[in-house]
């Protein structure tokens, strides 16, 4: 396929050439015709000028007197011996040669010459000459005037033809919808448009992927909502069957639990949606991890106390500042602490600390719950993933939310469950942005710190 530039150049140049040839030929014929006509007029004027010599003034010619060349002849003594026109008697302009003079309100072009014994002067009104010249010029121009609309049509067709791939592309893009995001074909497209198609295809692919993810999420969410709803419905029916007040009280208590669970799932779904990549824009707040940890511990203290779980922060003299979104980081830490409390047995221990790992600020949450099996460790970040035989109820979204927020903050998550010592340790390392590398401190190994 030729480039658009080549196509336009080829067709327009070709078209112009053909048109110019036609117009040139027409001009050639026209000018020849005009020249012949002019010569004819000269012939006629010559005869008219000389008709006075014969003394026979043709009365028919009087009408054309205006056009006429006035020829006058003077003898040596300066006596006018001949004049082609009786009406227009012009004075003698002795200096000779070409000149333009004004007589009355009329301009005349005069040529005069002294010929041995006589002085001959020929004069012609300037307006007649002008009119004749204009007429000839205008007639010669006409092929070019005709050429303009022809060229217009030619340009219209050529540009239209060259733009046809663009129109096809526009049609193809127009036919795409949220349901049909198949890539566009680059076949038969000029090289200038190919990059556009490639960029569009990339975009379509990304969109398709994003839509598929979103659809899967909605389907998963609807599916996941069914479980708490089933539990609610069943419990409601059991409450209806309750034979006495005591049974009814138990049934209602359970009903509340199930409602809380459904609400929490909805809440977590909303949080996840709000922490999807690209949703949170402001990541430029300075967040003190130590301070954040203290706030979260304060939030969860009552819950932990009720279950006799020892929840605390390892205080550090260093303030660990990370750049990020304070709300998102709060949600992240809340989810991790919530998980730790959920999976810890009554009387357990949950520690939050803010170590420095390889020069980067970090957050660490350690519990002494059951931990996460090695082969589940990559899957726990999937939405709605739940391990086998887990007794604690969770939405299955907590760690997915944590992952989203961590990704947005360029933080890496490490899970460690050691077999000899039960419990899960979650470590988040906040790698500084690309231009601000963490200080390399290889002596502090991740597993040792």
């Amino acid at each position: 396929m030729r480039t658009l530039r080549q196509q336009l150049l080829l067709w327009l140049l070709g078209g112009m050439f053909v048109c110019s040839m036609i117009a040139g030929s027409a001009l050639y014929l026209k000018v020849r015709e005009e020249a012949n006509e002019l010569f004819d007029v000269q012939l006629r004027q010559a005869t008219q000028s000389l008709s006075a010599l014969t003394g026979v003034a043709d009365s028919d010619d009087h009408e054309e007197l205006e056009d006429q060349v006035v020829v006058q002849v003077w003898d040596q003594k300066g006596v006018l011996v001949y004049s082609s026109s009786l009406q227009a008697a012009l004075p003698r302009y002795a200096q000779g040669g070409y000149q333009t003079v004004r007589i009355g309100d009329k301009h005349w072009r005069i040529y005069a010459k002294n010929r041995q014994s006589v002085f001959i002067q020929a004069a012609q009104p300037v307006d007649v000459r002008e009119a004749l010249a204009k007429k000839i010029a205008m007639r010669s121009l006409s092929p070019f005037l005709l050429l303009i609309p022809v060229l217009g049509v030619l340009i219209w067709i050529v540009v239209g033809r060259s733009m046809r791939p663009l129109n096809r592309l526009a049609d193809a893009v127009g036919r795409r919808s949220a349901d049909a995001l198949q890539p566009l074909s680059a076949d038969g497209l000029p090289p200038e448009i190919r990059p556009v198609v490639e960029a569009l295809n990339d975009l379509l692919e990304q969109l398709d992927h994003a839509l598929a993810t979103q659809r899967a999420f909605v389907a998963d969410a609807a599916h996941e909502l069914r479980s708490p709803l089933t539990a609610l419905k069943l419990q409601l029916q059991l409450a209806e069957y309750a034979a006495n007040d005591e049974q009814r009280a138990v049934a209602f208590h359970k009903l509340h639990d199930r409602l809380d669970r459904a609400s929490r799932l909805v809440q977590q779904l909303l949080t996840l949606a709000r922490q999807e990549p690209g949703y949170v824009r402001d990541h430029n707040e300075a967040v003190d991890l130590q301070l954040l940890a203290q706030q979260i511990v304060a939030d969860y203290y009552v819950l932990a106390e009720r279950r006799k779980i020892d929840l605390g922060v390892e205080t550090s003299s260093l303030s660990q500042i990370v750049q990020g979104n304070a709300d998102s980081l709060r949600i992240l830490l809340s989810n991790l602490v919530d998980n730790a409390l959920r999976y810890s047995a009554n009387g357990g221990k949950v520690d939050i600390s803010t170590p420095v790992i390889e020069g980067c600020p970090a957050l660490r949450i350690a519990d002494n719950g059951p931990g996460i099996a090695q082969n589940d460790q990559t899957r726990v970040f999937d939405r709605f993933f739940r391990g086998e035989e887990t007794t604690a109820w969770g939405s299955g979204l907590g760690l997915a939310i944590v992952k989203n927020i961590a990704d947005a903050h360029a933080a890496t998550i490490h899970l460690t469950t050691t077999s000899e010592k039960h419990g899960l340790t979650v470590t988040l390392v906040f790698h500084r942005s690309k231009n601000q590398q963490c200080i390399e401190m290889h002596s502090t190994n991740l597993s040792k710190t």
Partner: protein
Amino acid sequence: MRILLVEDDQMIGESVEEGLRLQHYAVDWVRSGSTATVALSCNMYDLILLDLGLPKKLGLDVLAEYRKQGGNTPVLILTARDTPAERVKGLDAGADDYLVKPFDLNELLARIRALLRRHTGRTQPIITCHGLVLNPASHAVTLHGAVLSLSAREFALLQALIDPPGRVISKTQLEEKLYGWQDEVESNTVEVYIHHLRKKLGTDFIKNVRGVGYMVPDQL
């Protein structure tokens, strides 16, 4: 009637178990596919309620494996997956019925009754035998038109013996039908219930097959 409930969701499992117990079914509740397989290999169940969305070992795998090993207990699938394709897959894997979450407890119980009835080859919802009429839905029992008052265990035992009649059932089998894992079984309870039933139905209604078990004959 003993039912195996395979459900990983704590709250749903709890409610279904309670609902089934209220209807005097003996229930064993397992929370994973692997324990379900173990339970199926060790016990005789009258019905299996199977959740498909189990972690790790999927419900369909449990079902396929069970059917391959010759298990013929009716299976009712409980699942949140409701597309026709999923239903077809479930039924083709050997399930007898399919119930989509969230379901109604009454519907679940009705389907369980229907499956149990079909499994014994009975088409009538009411069980009749020698003037005895048992309604599994309402648990009402009449003998020659007179209403009998039976306890839940007595009802379960009687249903096991007459649905259908003419089979010898061992004491162990009867115990299995009456008790789930969690229930305490005293050594002579079956005898005690048989004794109660004989008092209400007449001594000849349930025959003793010495050294084997009990039987209600087809014809008196």
